[in-house]
């Protein structure tokens, strides 16, 4: 790979194997899942069986009578420790246990504590709650106007300026209404040669990390120690301290490796409950969810997207209106951020003069939705890239050619007004077209097996503005430790950050020790999310390393070395302190520049520190007798700047694409009046070895993020973007039917084929 040549011949850009490889293949890597503390109680949650209602009574007597049960706790009991036990990153709307009302089936209502988890589980089954049932709303579009109101009053957290106008609002399910206005979209429609309008739906799905969510809290002196499988230890500390009215330093949060996160373990989930329980019973309390319980805890937004485009007869898109409805479920979690941060990219990576976007976060009586690998982007791309192909085909244009005519190029303004830089949209499109051999003739299959191909491209802005801080400690023998609150959940951040530090300090990556998040020791980091760590923490680590390096240089000069002369750090310490003693501590703190979008127009001249670009090409085969679909080839391409570790980057690309592949083809949370009917891996299937395409290619497009650390930027989500529409476009290419609702099941393909046939019969 040619572009690696311009890297320094050192640590960055090298495919270093993961630092923790040995621990993981021997089963010795530490996860919160396995953690046991002396005197620990196990918590088991009793959950709501109705989607919406007022709690009339909770009878815990039978549960409390079970031998071995330590205590049974309800929401009202929690008030003894925290008067208002509501938490959340965007809204303080979620009670640690239900208070007054329940808002979705599976919501925690009471909790049993016992030394034996089997006893806790058995006792939890004996709790009886009665409710006055209320009308419920499940659909995001219906929630706009429904008389069923999920929250009586909106309670935004106040940390986000764009949520302030929602404080105290009543009788609405709209948790955020984001809008963008650019140019005159109505005029564009009025003067257009063609106008296209379509609606697309995405289903609710779940992250299913194989390490189910787990948190453990223990009283610790006059403070609290929380061990948790979290992607955001710093946020957990801040939020728990807020709930308790404590300074941050009385709350210590530790996170070892995560057995998968994908957004499920972000912000605050189980931590508030175990924190309050531990303070209540003055013992460590551990809450380990089962796979099934995870489905009640956090999910990916179902979404309805209405998209309308004005297009010239040459195939230029001149105007686009986007209406996006996000089904946030019963609690806002980070939904309002998804609504805004993804909302402004809803028109796609295209150069469009006139744009109007309305993006709505809706409360419904479903399990809460939050971030899942892409922060809303895959739902948007699903719509706008299906829409792209529908327009191209109607105009008789090649889908690749249509995109070439419309993509945003270097220096052109995005819908927000931000000028595009370091965004290889074209590079990604062309790489896919090249690898698909797009201009060559294509075998379309025969008999009842039809073949087709499709592509999709997309982009994502980074969540802004966010901060990362890193601390480097050089010991007297010259070795280095790196203290960061970035969570390694499999993306290999330990390795990547060690590579950056090693590069700056001139050490070997393998010799760096990365200290895992422990908020008593590791400094603030906003969270491990949204592919932000490489860029933000990467910069912080670089700055910390440079800070340490500078101090070493100064020490050398003060000890009589000529400026710029080579030295071994250990010699400096020895010379300075007369023995192996002392430290040098380097600190790096990074926050990129950013301009908030203007409230009325949504415009900003600096909406993101960097763009992630991803695209997908697929070749598929359809069995027209059954609707069965086989993906034969999956080609992923992304602009991630210069790769810090090419091999790990490739694994990230194929892993992201295969995750979205499951969301595209079969993953689907099925509900019957708010009751989830397939909440286990027996009935909610995720991709296994026999599902993955026989050919998978991952391409790192030649690019450099000029503002990134060593030219790099994030990559964890980029390959998710294009998978769904690429496959839907290929289905249309193969058999001429257009699906507008995910997942793309054999049955939906079969039904569409049948409908097309009967339509043709009538004509």
């Amino acid at each position, binding site marked *: 790979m040619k572009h690696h040549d311009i890297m320094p011949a050192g640590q960055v850009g090298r495919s270093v*194997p*993961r630092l*923790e*490889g*040995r*621990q*993981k*293949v*021997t*089963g*010795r*890597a530490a*996860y919160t*899942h*396995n953690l*046991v503390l002396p005197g620990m109680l196990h918590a088991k949650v009793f959950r709501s069986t109705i989607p919406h209602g007022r709690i009339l009574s909770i009878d815990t007597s039978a549960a409390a009578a079970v031998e071995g049960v330590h205590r049974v706790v309800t929401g009202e009991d929690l008030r003894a420790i925290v008067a208002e036990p509501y938490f959340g990153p965007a809204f303080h709307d979620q009670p640690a246990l239900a208070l007054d009302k329940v808002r979705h089936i599976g919501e925690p209502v009471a909790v049993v504590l016992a030394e034996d988890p*089997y006893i806790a589980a058995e006792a939890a089954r004996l709790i009886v709650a009665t409710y006055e049932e209320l009308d419920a709303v499940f659909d995001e579009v219906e929630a706009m106007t429904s008389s069923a109101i999920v929250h009586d009053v909106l309670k935004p957290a106040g940390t986000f300026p764009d949520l302030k106008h929602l404080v105290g609002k009543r009788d609405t399910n709209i948790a955020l209404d984001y809008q963008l206005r650019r140019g005159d979209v109505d005029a564009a429609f009025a003067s257009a040669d063609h106008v296209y309008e379509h609606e697309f739906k995405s289903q609710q799905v779940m*992250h*299913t*990390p*194989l*390490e*189910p969510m787990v948190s453990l809290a223990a009283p610790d002196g006059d403070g609290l120690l929380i061990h948790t499988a979290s992607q955001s230890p710093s946020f957990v500390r801040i939020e728990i301290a807020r709930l308790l009215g404590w300074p941050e330093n009385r709350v210590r949060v530790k996170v070892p*490796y*995560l*057995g*998968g*996160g*994908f957004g499920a373990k972000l912000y605050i989930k189980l931590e508030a409950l175990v924190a309050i329980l531990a303070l209540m019973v003055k013992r460590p309390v551990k809450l380990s969810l*089962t*796979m*099934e319980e995870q489905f009640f805890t956090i999910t990916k937004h179902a979404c309805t997207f209405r998209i309308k485009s004005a297009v010239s007869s040459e195939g230029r898109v001149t105007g686009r209106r986007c209406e996006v409805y996000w089904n946030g479920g019963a609690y806002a979690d980070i939904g309002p951020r998804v609504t805004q941060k993804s909302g402004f990219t809803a028109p796609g990576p295209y150069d469009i003069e006139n744009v109007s976007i309305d993006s709505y976060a809706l409360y419904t009586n479903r399990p809460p939705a939050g971030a899942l690998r892409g922060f809303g982007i895959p739902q948007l791309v699903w719509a706008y890239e299906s829409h792209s192909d529908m327009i191209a085909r109607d105009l008789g244009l090649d889908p690749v050619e249509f995109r070439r005519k419309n993509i945003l190029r270097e220096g052109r303004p995005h819908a927000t007004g931000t000028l595009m830089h370091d965004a290889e949209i074209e590079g990604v499109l062309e790489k896919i077209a090249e690898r698909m051999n797009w201009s060559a003739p294509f075998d379309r299959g025969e008999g009842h097996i039809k073949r087709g191909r499709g592509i999709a491209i997309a982009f994502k802005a980074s969540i802004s503005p966010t901060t990362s801080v890193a601390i480097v400690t050089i010991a007297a023998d010259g070795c280095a430790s790196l203290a960061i609150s970035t969570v390694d*959940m*499999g*993306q*290999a951040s330990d390795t990547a950050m060690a590579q950056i530090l090693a590069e700056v300090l001139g050490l070997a990556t393998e010799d760096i020790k990365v200290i895992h998040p422990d908020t008593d020791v590791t400094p603030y980091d906003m969270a491990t999310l949204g592919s932000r760590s490489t860029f933000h923490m990467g910069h912080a680590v670089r700055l910390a390393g440079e800070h340490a390096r500078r101090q070493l240089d100064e020490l050398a000069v003060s000890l009589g070395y000529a400026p710029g002369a080579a030295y071994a750090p250990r010699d400096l310490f020895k010379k300075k302190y007369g023995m192996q003693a002392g430290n040098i501590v380097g600190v790096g703190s990074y926050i990129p520049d950013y301009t908030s979008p203007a409230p009325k127009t949504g415009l900003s001249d600096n909406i993101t520190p960097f763009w992630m670009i991803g695209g997908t090409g697929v070749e598929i085969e359809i069995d027209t007798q059954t609707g069965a679909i086989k993906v034969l080839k999956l080609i992923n391409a992304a602009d991630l700047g210069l790769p810090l570790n090419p*091999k*790990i980057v490739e*694994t990230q690309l*194929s*892993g992201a694409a*295969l*995750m979205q592949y499951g969301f595209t083809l079969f993953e689907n949370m099925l509900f019957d009046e708010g009751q989830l009917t397939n909440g*286990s*891996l*027996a009935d909610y299937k*995720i*991709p*296994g*070895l*026999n599902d*993955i395409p026989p050919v*998978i290619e991952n391409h790192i497009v030649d690019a450099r993020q000029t503002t990134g650390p060593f030219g790099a930027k994030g990559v964890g989500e980029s390959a998710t973007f294009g998978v769904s529409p690429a496959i839907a476009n290929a289905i249309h290419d193969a058999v001429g039917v257009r699906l507008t609702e995910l997942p793309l099941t054999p049955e939906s393909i079969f039904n569409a084929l049948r409908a097309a046939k009967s339509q043709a019969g009538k004509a």
Partner: protein
Amino acid sequence: MDPSIRKIAFTLNGQKVSAQVESHINLVDLLRRFNLDGARESCGQGLCGCCTVLVDGVAVSGCLTLAQLVDGKSLTTVEGLDASGALSVVQQAFIDEGAFQCGFCTPGFVLMTHQLLETNADPDEHEIRDYLAGNLCRCAAYPEIIRAVKTAGDRMRAIST
């Protein structure tokens, strides 16, 4: 004495051990009492393979195995594979091919790969997929896992010839 509790004796990674075991606990619970964390209960339904343990040399789902039933048997967990201090050929191949991300499912995949290569020294891709299809990796390091199995097989055959 409570009839639901029994003393069982078994061999654990080559060591003879015994334990007082309640009837309802499963094999993963039992291993936890011996501070072995490599087998993990995830889906709880025998579908993900995170809890794989070898009982008398045969792979089973620890989460679906009642602990009392391993009385008299010989168990191998992932921790037993590098008892000599050196990684097994399979473990090294997983590292070299980067065949994992979060690592939670990895012990199960490693143990199943040992089983596969014991019965089929040179599996083709189709056989690898079929044999390991009962193990799930949500990070989807599947292409790398297939490569690791092939690499391990190649190296094992090279050693034995």
